[in-house]
């Protein structure tokens, strides 16, 4: 078996995604469905419901009184926040594990992921866009490919490092050249197996190469920026460090300036308690 075949095989061995969440994602994508329908779908899964309520009632969320049902949580938090908590719980187990090939200990990739997701909210607000639940979820799982790829990165680390250090190549390029696939491509493959919406698969596939996406440009660009800003802060930074390409086009598209990036970083610094709260969903 070639390395590539081996990688693809191990990606199919990831635990399946909770069906109830797939159903919820599907409903959200349908303009005709109501929030109530989504909540009812989730309610059937007791483990997920219990998880969501635990996070809602954690000290970091600071609700004035404890909530005991999803409907109650919905009333206090609104649908978007409720959905985000649910998604965090669903993917925490997979993304929260140690990714030693990238020199990330248990929880570090998860912290980077949750920070990116919080940045997606900061960005949506700053850009005056309507909240898009896809965005938060895509930001949460954009690096899912690393979970599978890391052991192969570890084996070939010296070769990859040489390409990055000596030839000034991006880490993504080096992964592709040495392993035959990079973590963004692999992430798209995994989320395709999970039957995720196309918009999310596209955002994950192109989170380092946003100009190549061709479709779902807004979402792809936003996920690219969230990941990039989270990388700049260093939160959950691993062997790949900051070895990725910056694209002015994305900044120009949103009419953002250097100072805006600084503002987003400062805002994230203020909302780290939110990061901690959502990490508690694990």
């Amino acid at each position, binding site marked *: 078996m070639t390395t590539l075949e081996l990688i693809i095989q191990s990606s199919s061995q990831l635990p399946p995604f909770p069906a109830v969440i797939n159903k919820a994602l599907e409903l959200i994508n349908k303009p005709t469905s109501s929030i109530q329908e989504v909540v009812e779908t989730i309610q059937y899964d007791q483990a997920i419901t219990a998880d969501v309520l635990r996070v809602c009632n954690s000290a970091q969320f600071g609700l004035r009184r404890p909530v005991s049902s999803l409907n109650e949580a919905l009333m206090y938090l609104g649908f978007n926040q409720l959905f985000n908590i649910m998604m965090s719980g669903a993917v925490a187990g997979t993304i929260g594990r140690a990714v030693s090939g*990238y*020199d990330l200990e248990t929880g*570090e990739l998860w912290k980077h992921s949750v920070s990116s997701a919080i940045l997606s909210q900061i960005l949506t607000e700053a850009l005056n866009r309507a909240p898009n639940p896809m965005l938060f979820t895509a930001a949460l799982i954009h690096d899912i490919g690393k979970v599978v790829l890391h052991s192969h990165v570890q084996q070939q*680390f010296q070769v990859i*490092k040489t390409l*990055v250090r000596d030839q*000034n190549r*991006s880490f993504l390029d080096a992964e592709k050249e040495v392993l035959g696939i990079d973590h963004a491509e692999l992430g798209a493959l995994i989320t395709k197996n999970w039957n995720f919406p196309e918009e999310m698969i596209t955002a994950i596939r192109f989170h380092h190469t946003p100009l190549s996406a061709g479709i779902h440009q807004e979402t792809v660009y936003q996920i690219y920026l969230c990941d*990039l800003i989270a*990388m*700049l*802060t*260093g*939160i*959950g*930074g*691993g*062997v790949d*460090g*900051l*070895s*990725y*390409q*910056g694209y*002015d086009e994305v*900044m120009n598209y949103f009419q*953002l*300036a*250097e*100072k805006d*990036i*600084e*503002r987003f*970083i*400062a805002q994230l*610094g*203020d909302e780290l308690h939110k990061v901690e709260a959502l990490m508690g969903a694990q």
Partner: protein
Amino acid sequence: MGISQDEDGSLITYSLGSCIGVVIYDPVARVGGLLHYMLPESNLDPQKALKKPYMFADTGIPLLFKESYRFGGVKNRLIVKVAGGAQILDDSGFFNIGKRNYMAMRKLLWKNNILIKAEDVGGQVSRTVRLEMSTGEVWIKYSGEEEKKL
């Protein structure tokens, strides 16, 4: 930000991306300090700087020094070492916050006649910085590599 006089301990900050870690150490008073700041200038948001002065170079660095004086540190004895300020692969400058973080610090130290004894800045790497209090040595670790002395 942390100040220490504990000779058995270390001050450490993990995974600096474009942020900068400033380490100071007075070998006579045996007091050390470490600041990890994220942004160059507090005029971005003066309100925030009042609440979180350590987020910015221009409000965090003076406080780091002042705090060490309270523990017997003396300005002209303090050894200053810095690390961090990494960047993504970008020519245009939109994302070069690491460089701006570095320049803000240089400007501030220069104005106050403070020399940097050693530095490990720039590049694309994620760094962890550790000040060993028993020796005053500063150790840098790039992610995925062995720790090395600065």
